[in-house]
């Protein structure tokens, strides 16, 4: 009868939509993984071929970027911009950058520095917003008469790879009030959290996803990457 046919048709259409959604998701995952692998393979190839030239190119880039950062810091400290003081600034920045160029950028692939810096600059406002939210929550906890805190120590296994991403995540966790990173024990973060709400916020892993997105590590399916991918795929499909 018509009603059962209609219901059958609706069920079929739902099934088809579900399957096509799964196929689209598979396609997006494969696309992300393929680009990550291609980038890895290229990096390994370049490192294996031109170790000598690559090393000196990395050193020169580190020297230039350190020199620029030092010049900006000098201009910030000294408010005088006449020729004498600026030339002193150039000499001092040159000396410091020459003797310490391998300090700030330890293990960085050539060509990624600008992207990482831009993503880091975009991450800071979100971190400030989280700090403000946590401030309100901890102030409410401290000022209420029965102080509903529940201090606990959590162990978070993390999927990050390099030193500087560990440090960025640990510092972000310590800066938001309510959580303190106690130790990093070979991929495990040992964190002390003040109350249940703060611990749950940490366990969802959003901060870790964002830090992995800055340093382009750990195959993750971050929202911004999916949006970029979908644009590429829509162009290909047309």
């Amino acid at each position: 009868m018509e009603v059962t046919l209609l219901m059958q048709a609706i069920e079929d259409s739902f099934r088809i939509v579900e399957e096509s959604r799964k196929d689209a998701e598979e396609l997006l995952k494969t696309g992300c993984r393929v680009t990550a692998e291609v980038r890895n393979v290229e990096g390994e190839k370049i490192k294996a071929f031109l170790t000598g030239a690559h090393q000196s190119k990395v050193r020169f880039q580190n020297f230039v970027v350190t020199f620029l950062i030092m010049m900006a810091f000098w201009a910030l400290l000294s408010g005088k911009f006449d020729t004498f003081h600026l030339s002193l600034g150039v000499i001092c920045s040159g000396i410091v950058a020459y003797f310490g160029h391998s300090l700030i950028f330890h293990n960085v692939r050539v060509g990624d520095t600008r992207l990482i810096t831009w993503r880091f600059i975009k991450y800071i406002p979100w971190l400030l917003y989280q700090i403000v939210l946590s401030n309100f929550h901890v102030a409410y906890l401290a000022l209420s008469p029965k102080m509903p805190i529940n201090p606990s120590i959590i162990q978070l296994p993390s999927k990050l790879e390099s030193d500087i991403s560990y440090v960025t995540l640990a510092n972000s966790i310590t800066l938001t009030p309510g959580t303190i990173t106690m130790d990093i024990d070979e991929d495990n973060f040992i964190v002390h959290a003040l109350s249940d709400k703060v611990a749950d916020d940490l366990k969802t892993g959003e901060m870790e996803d964002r830090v992995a997105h800055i340093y382009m590590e750990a195959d993750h399916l971050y929202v911004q990457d999916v949006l970029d991918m979908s644009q590429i795929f829509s162009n290909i499909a047309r």
Partner: protein
Amino acid sequence: MVFRSEDVIVKTISRILVPFIQLYALYVIMHGHYSPGGGFQGGVILAASFILMLLTYGYGETKERISEKLVNLFSSIGVLIYAGIGFLCLLLLGNFLDYSQLARILPVEAARARSLGILGVELGVGLAVMAVMISIFLDISSGGVVPDDRDVDEDE
């Protein structure tokens, strides 16, 4: 002996901070005439940056940046700059450390020559103070025995 720290946070943050501390120390030395600072203060902050590296990485890794021999050399060079400028003023027919005589060899007028002379003397003082501070830290932290190359040869 100060051993290497195993904590990845302390190592990375010290590594990033050391160039900023060194640039701040050079700023304090150069701007002694305008804001609080000068030679001695800048020298101590410069030494503090190297001591931070020594604390977090141990002597073995910091040896290539600042070793015992380099520290001895720097302390002598600092005093040489200070006394050298003084004797230069003496040779140019003035009093000891009378910077206005420097106007004879530099193409500036007397007041500017005094300012440049003081800047040079502050640099010398900063270098000497940095070297002596690091030397004191190395002596106290290692109990007088620094594993230099000579000691390794003597053991063998």
